[in-house]
């Protein structure tokens, strides 16, 4: 339960080894006295390692199994198992980013990206949102991406998959209005992390801690008709995204090619 000065009690991270997710959780533990943390994910060893780090910050950390590629009902059940009525924040940070820009040419890879980023993640969002809705409080932080605003030629499948995820998250944000629970859709640009380690840095690149600060700030603003539902990291990314979204196709292709050449 959130207290009178915005401190939290229980935080759940779906995708418990995500660099961004862990940065957010660590900030909530340090700054908002979130004493109970649950890390849910696949890799038990990596989860335990992350849990140990959070324990040194003073949190009690539990670990729970969760796989995005399991059958839908199984995924939903695994999400529900991590939640109880005291949960204040659920951070959803599950996703894969293909190493190859031409993910559109590899049907196996494309399937994996859609399976994890859209299908499995979507089921998780739905399960978490329904549970928060029933308990009448709590915030679901959905880590989308600036890629979701348009499936660009250089990240076709990832962009399309994230667009589906983003649409679902935004729809849930609208649907949960007035229930006491809310959804915060976070759209970071390029973030330095394990997931992007093999990728070329894009303009306006930031670190996981910057996402954590942005999410923390958004949690300061309490829910209400005017509360923000979308968080851009950095904030300037909102302008870039508006540009990307409205750019004529030929220009977008040319810019993408130019960036690729510069990067290569």
């Amino acid at each position, binding site marked *: *339960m959130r207290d009178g000065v915005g*401190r939290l*009690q229980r935080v759940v991270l779906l995708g418990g080894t995500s660099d961004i997710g862990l940065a957010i959780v660590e900030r909530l533990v340090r700054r908002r006295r979130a*004493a109970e943390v649950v890390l849910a994910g696949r890799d038990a060893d990596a989860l*335990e390692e992350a849990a140990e780090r959070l324990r040194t910050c003073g949190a009690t950390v539990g670990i729970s199994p969760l796989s995005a590629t399991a059958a839908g009902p199984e995924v939903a059940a695994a999400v529900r198992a991590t939640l109880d009525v*005291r949960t204040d924040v659920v951070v959803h940070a599950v996703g894969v980013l293909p190493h190859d820009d031409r993910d559109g040419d590899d049907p196996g890879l494309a399937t994996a990206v859609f399976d994890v980023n859209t299908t499995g993640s979507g089921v998780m969002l739905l399960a978490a949102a329904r549970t928060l809705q029933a308990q*009448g409080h709590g915030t679901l932080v959905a880590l989308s991406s600036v890629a979701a605003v348009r499936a660009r030629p250089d990240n076709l499948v990832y962009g399309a998959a994230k667009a589906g995820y983003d649409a679902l998250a935004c729809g849930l944000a609208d649907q949960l209005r007035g*229930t006491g629970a809310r959804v915060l859709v976070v759209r970071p640009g390029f973030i330095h992390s394990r997931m992007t380690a093999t990728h070329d840095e894009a303009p306006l690149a930031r670190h996981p801690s910057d996402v954590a600060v942005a999410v923390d700030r958004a949690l300061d603003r309490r*829910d209400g008709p005017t509360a923000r539902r979308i968080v851009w990291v950095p904030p300037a990314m909102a302008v870039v995204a508006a540009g990307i979204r409205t750019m004529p196709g030929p220009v977008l292709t040319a810019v993408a090619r130019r960036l690729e050449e510069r990067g290569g």
Partner: protein
Amino acid sequence: MADVVAPTMPGAVPPGADRVTSFGRALRGRTTVAPLDAGAVATTRGITRGSGCSYGDQAWCSGGLSWTAPVDVRIGTDEVDVGGGVVLRDLLRDLWPLGRTLAVLPGSLAVTVGGAIAADVHGKNHASAGTFGHHVLGLDLVTPSGRRAVGPEDEAFRATTGGMGLTGTIERARLATVPLASTWATHTTTPVTGVTDLLATMEAARADHEHVAAWLDLVAPHVRGIVEATTVDVDGPRTDAMLPSPPTVRVPPLPTSLVRRGSIRVANAARFRLARSATTRVPLTSALFPLESVGGFPHVYGPTGFVQHQVVVPDGHDDVLVDVVACHRELPIVPALAVLKWLGDAGPGHLSFPRRGWTLAVDLPASGPGLGDHLDAIDQRVAAVGGRVYLAKDATAAPGAIAAMYPRLAEWRRVADDLDPDHLVTSDLDRRLGLRRPGIEVADA
């Protein structure tokens, strides 16, 4: 690896559309407010909601139901039989013309009888009159395991007075009434500078006044305050026109907070300088119920609201009280309103707040997580000498801190579990502090 306890959610209800806030507006929730229904209490998560005067999340259940109790009044010669939802102000308006009153009255008359029992409230005369619970003759309690008539000798009574509504809904209560000779009071004000002198002046005032409290100015360069001592006149007159009435002035919602260090400094200085050492005859209502004069005053704190932090420091630990005052003065947040009172012996309930000692209540703008860490430090200091925070005011306590402050918590839990084995009666406060069920940090220390 820590085991994560995942309590089940029996009887989940569809989210309601009713928006509720704490009295200080710092906490908000969504719940379905509904009239008490004994059948539904047995199947649905919920808590009783009175007038919403608690300073935190005591009186609602997010995603659950928030019950309202009946409001009928039956007046006997020396007792009243009232619904739990009856507002004290309304009850007094019935009683005072008959020459009767209640022995214990809190500073706000907007609270309900059920709320007053659930918080086991006290007045400025706690040292002589005890708590509200001391004057309750019997209760009708609606619990998930059925309706029960409960008397002062029952364990369920001790668990319910001060039990924050977590043993079930107080449907009816029989309260003892006492004679009211006059609606006038003799009121003595004494401006004092320095904490030690304040405490000494209050101790002296206690000797010949029933009601003693001090207003403190914590933003002045030196701590100062006004000791206010009140005694109800014994020889009348009783003026019906001087009945407690709802506030005539209301502060509207404001877009921003008016509470700044500068504004509070000016207001406090004015109040202190205008105060004279004097004894006057004043209407009882204005002497005892300061919160009744202006409605909606939490709005001056703007949209983020305020929290009230109230602790009791046990007798013999004045040094800790001085430390707590110093802590509040060092805060980057302005301690806008501070009230000091002396409490007598403990109340009847397992979780009754009072115990012999000084109690300090401070209103603080709910500015953000940083404030919470300061209050945690104060809580620890107070708990170390056997003091405690007032659950009816709490909005920030650490879940693990409560067991040390309330040594009878385990006993209370056992009685509450008997009345409500499935833990259907729950509030956001209950979940936040792990009152009915200990949180995992206790199990995994």
